[in-house]
């Protein structure tokens, strides 16, 4: 099978498993919702404008925290009954496996971020300022989601066979996603009209996140085989 054929099958399989197990709906979404509500309690919007100002950052912080849970789940599915070894023996191309898992994770992140943006609007009195801003926000969610999914799959694969992977994964991954966190927050600020960032600057930040996404996905596809062998 070609790399893309493998990627399609892996992504379809992962999304089907998610649709059946409902981990995203029953665990990850409530978790990220609770995180946003806790932020809302901690930052009293009645007494200051700070909650509205920091809402974009909170959306992406909640996304990154939720991503950790999602990655553990995505690789637990492969690890629990030895499917990862079976995939290797089946000669599945590592690049296809990486891309498939990245696509599956990115689709789930897209759904998660849509909910988080709505929660930000409700809890922090933010709003998307017009059609152009909505477009910027949509592109940000897709591009940043792809970047996070790429990094998450790469580090999830790295930690999959390691002892103490539950604590190792955040330690390894969180520092790496800082550029995505900053870039996505800035462009979301532009879309929400907070933080004094204009639309032009917002698109520049999206471009930066896009470059990171290309690096993460391209590099991950190349490196994933070596990671699995180790």
């Amino acid at each position: 099978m070609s790399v893309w054929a493998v990627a399609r099958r892996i992504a379809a399989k992962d999304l089907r498993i998610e649709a059946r197990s409902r981990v995203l709906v029953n665990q990850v979404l409530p978790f990220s919702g609770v995180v946003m509500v806790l932020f809302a309690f901690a930052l009293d919007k009645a007494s200051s404008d700070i909650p509205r100002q920091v809402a974009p950052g909170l959306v992406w912080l909640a996304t990154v925290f939720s991503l950790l849970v999602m990655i553990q789940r995505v690789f637990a599915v492969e690890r629990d009954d030895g499917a990862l070894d079976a995939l290797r023996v089946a000669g599945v191309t590592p690049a296809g496996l990486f891309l498939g898992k990245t696509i599956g994770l990115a689709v789930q992140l897209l759904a998660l971020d849509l909910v988080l943006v709505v929660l930000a609007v409700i809890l922090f009195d933010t709003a998307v300022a017009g059609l152009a801003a909505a477009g910027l926000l949509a592109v940000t969610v897709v591009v940043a989601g792809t970047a996070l999914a790429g990094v998450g799959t790469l580090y999830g694969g790295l930690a999959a066979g390691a002892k103490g992977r539950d604590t190792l994964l955040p330690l390894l991954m969180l520092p790496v996603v800082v550029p995505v966190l900053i870039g996505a927050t800035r462009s979301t600020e532009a879309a929400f009209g907070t933080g004094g960032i204009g639309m032009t600057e917002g698109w520049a930040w999206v471009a930066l996140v896009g470059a990171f996404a290309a690096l993460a996905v391209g590099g991950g596809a190349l490196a994933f085989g070596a990671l699995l062998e180790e």
Partner: protein
Amino acid sequence: MADVVDLLDVVAVIGSFPALAGATLRVEPGEIVLLRGPNGAGKTSLLRLCAGLLPVVRGSATVCGVDLTVDRRAVRRRVGLLGHANGLYADLTVAENVAFWGATVGATRDEVDAALVRLGVGGRLAGVPVGRLSAGQRRRTALACLVVRRATLWLLDEPHAGLDAAGRDELDATLRQAVQAGATVLIASHELERAAGLATRTVEVVGGQVVGVAP
């Protein structure tokens, strides 16, 4: 015809633990070879090495015509490995699991259906998520996945474990049929009476070495 497995003085390690310590084994096409030996003898490591999952540290190893010291990944499409784990996805149905693994070698829908029927997991069971099956039914499903992959070399680690009497008979029949179709089989098992009745040859593995041909 060249040997399907040709290992000479092979050394392999898992971490710092010596898994194989100079193992030598030759298996001809069409053989069903039983690997027997105590726990920790190196039977599983031998199977994983033949599957290209364990690197060769020293010695020479050729499996299905592929030199494992040069590119062990190249052998993987030609072998099928059933280890202690089944390699199944609990949230997918039996049919979806078999179809997924069959797709890796371009198996048709008919081949998938035939494998399901052959291992007794067709019909109503085919639509049941694997997570709801008994251990024996999962093992049958894993075997169906192996059948549909049309491997040249079958590597089976305790394949009878968890199967009922009917399942064991079906497994034995499936293996004999695979051999008739041109496959070669390596079995590691502690169920010596059952496996020996199936095997054309039995070898003893002790301390990471193949120490002799058992009667």
